[in-house]
């Protein structure tokens, strides 16, 4: 401290006198854990205020406190903080893993009960409360049709909209579209259902339906479209922006008009990413219950026609069976839930793998 740079100032207290630091011995953490369990058990059973779960919770808290105190005394405050946060972060993981594992476990163990041909081959038509059989064939048909129609509507619309925003849109109008696509992302699914109820089921469809409200699979598809559209637009937009500018410029330089460049150069380059986005949107839509509940009607019989009469869907089927008083209903609900999750996960996994294979711009 005698140099010109630092004129006689006190040494910062930070400077450690030695590189060596006192460390808690390796056995300290398990020892504290053991002590915490013993103390917790003594408190809980001694006072008779709970069972093993409370012991574990209390022991975990005691362990954290004990670890902090011991580390603070031996290693200092910084190290104590580091240890405590590390322990907290690890326990957050364990804490969340328990319920999530329980969800997965129940889903599989209860779901396999009715995983039979009957379930996939029959509907709930004429199935009474005392009938143990019955299946989700009609619901699977409904889900596939509704999601399929929704994809048919949203994919062209969403991609064209994204092309406008990225390639042509300028100024306020394009900004407004982007803003409202953002707003649409935040629409709760039940509100989308209410919209289609108010618009299609109660106002438009009665025109073709002798004035009666027309609950149908198509109405459900409309509601799902409202939910899928912003996702498709956003992911397409993102992918189009990732297409390298030289690619476009290369085509322009060859005298190719803009629209051809977009259709033949830009879109094919962005295609894998767009497909990923669409698949994720479809997966989400397939799991939606609320809008289908409001506008599809939810029939028990097989109905292949999405434009007429009530239709069900897998998600709706789960909801209906869960609320059914029949003692055979829960098994049907769980198997349908397992089927639904399998469908959604297959789509999601495929989309993620596709995304991993084709990384534009990374």
């Amino acid at each position, binding site marked *: 401290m005698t140099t010109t740079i630092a004129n006689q100032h006190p040494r910062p207290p930070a400077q450690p006198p030695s590189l060596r630091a006192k460390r808690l011995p390796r056995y300290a953490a398990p020892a504290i854990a053991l002590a915490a369990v013993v103390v917790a058990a003594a408190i809980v059973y001694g006072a008779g205020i*709970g069972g093993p779960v409370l012991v574990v919770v209390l022991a975990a808290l005691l362990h954290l406190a004990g670890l902090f105190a011991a580390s603070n005394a031996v290693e200092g405050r*910084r*190290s104590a*903080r*580091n240890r405590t946060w590390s322990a907290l972060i*690890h326990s*957050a*993981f364990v804490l*969340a893993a328990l*319920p*999530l594992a329980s969800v997965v476990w129940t889903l599989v163990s*209860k779901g396999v009960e009715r995983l039979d041909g009957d379930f996939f081959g029959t509907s709930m038509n004429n199935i009474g409360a005392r009938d143990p059989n019955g299946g989700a064939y009609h619901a699977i048909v409904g889900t596939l049709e509704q999601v399929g129609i929704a994809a048919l509507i949203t994919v062209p619309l969403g991609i*064209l*909209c994204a*092309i*406008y925003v990225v390639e042509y849109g300028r100024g306020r109008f394009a900004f407004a*579209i982007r803003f*409202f696509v*953002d*707003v649409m*992302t*935040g*629409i*709760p699914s*039940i509100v989308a259902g*209410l*919209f289609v*109820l*108010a*618009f299609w089921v*109660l106002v438009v469809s009665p025109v073709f339906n002798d004035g009666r409200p027309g609950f149908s699979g198509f109405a459900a598809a409309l509601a799902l479209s*409202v939910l899928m559209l912003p996702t498709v*637009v956003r992911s397409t937009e993102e992918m189009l922006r990732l297409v390298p500018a030289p690619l476009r410029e*290369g*085509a322009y330089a060859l*005298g*190719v*008009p803009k629209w051809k460049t*977009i*259709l*033949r*150069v830009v879109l*094919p*380059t962005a*295609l894998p990413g767009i497909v990923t986005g669409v698949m*994720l949107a479809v997966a989400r839509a397939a*799991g939606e219950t*609320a809008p289908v*509940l*409001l506008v599809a009607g939810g029939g028990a019989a097989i109905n292949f026609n999405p434009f007429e009469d009530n239709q069900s869907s897998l998600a709706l089927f*789960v*909801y209906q069976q869960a609320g059914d008083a029949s003692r055979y209903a*829960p098994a049907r*609900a*769980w198997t349908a*839930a397992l089927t*639904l*999750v399998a469908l959604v*996960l297959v789509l*999601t996994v495929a989309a993620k793998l596709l995304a991993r294979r084709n990384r534009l711009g990374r």
Partner: protein
Amino acid sequence: MGETPSRSADAGTGGIRVASGQERPAGAPARVAESPVSTRTPGGDGLGGGGGLPRARAFGAERAFRGLTLAAGTTVLVIIAAIAGFLIAKAVPALRADTANFWTYEGWSPNDTTPRFGIGTLAFGTVLSSALALLIAVPVALGIALFLSHYAPRRLGTALGFLIDLLAAVPSVVFGLWGRDVFVAPVRDLSAWLNQYFGWIPIFGGDGPFGKSIMLGSLVLAIMVLPIVTSLSREVFLQTPTANEEAALALGATRWEMIRTAVLPYGRPGIIAAVMLGLGRALGETIALAMTLGITFGVSFNLIENGGNTIAANIANAFGEANDTGRGALIASGLVLFTITLIVNITARAIVHRRREFTESAA
């Protein structure tokens, strides 16, 4: 490439083939995209020839395409306008028919001859359950995200991260079913325990029955939004520049200090966005809450007694026996829900935007 020589005489097509062939070895998708092009411009094939000046008709195709995309863009605006328009049109008659105060009345009987219904308790339940869910989920989710990005070995982190992404895709009805069939039992036990020893605190008071309570609903909601918030914030944490992490470490930071100095500040806008997205999900969640809440009307902070209700859950539950006014009333409540989520989303975007401007002006 796989085209007939006669067609490639067209100058325009030939040019594109060169461009797409260079940049995209897998030519197949490029050719797939070609068919709609030629159908959209029936006269296009005959144009080429000398490859001279652009023809007016090519310009027309450009215009047509641009018009098509513009129409698609406009559709989005039309849809939004239609949502607002139709919801309001259906809600107003019901609100006119409401003989009670829509904002404060505690109850929902719009199907009576003198309809009486109020949004107050539902909005309260919605906000309460979502707030509780986030209060529980966010710290845990951030902890897991940090664990996956900065504590776990890289491979384990990637694998578990993928798993979390998958859990985020599980439909809410499944969580609802689980909450109703499985999770309700431990929550009932916990409620009884809390009531026995902490019954003097109003939120744990009451004398049962327990189980299908705000607590169950919020916990299920928390478990649902947990993967979403985790997945998004993990991605944010992974994006922290290595240079900043190393800078912190080289100053002698412990791992936690490195996270506090480099990772968390850098990820703050992303974390806020993730939390707000989770909040939006929680506020709009319908089915899981319709399956786990006890459905009562009344403003109460009691967390453990059967009860609780939210706007969305009420729509799902009351829809079945709703008449015309009843539907209008539900639509009106949906409008309120939409407004709440809209405010949340816009606030989130404003926060993220402002934060980003600070860092971008810096860059």
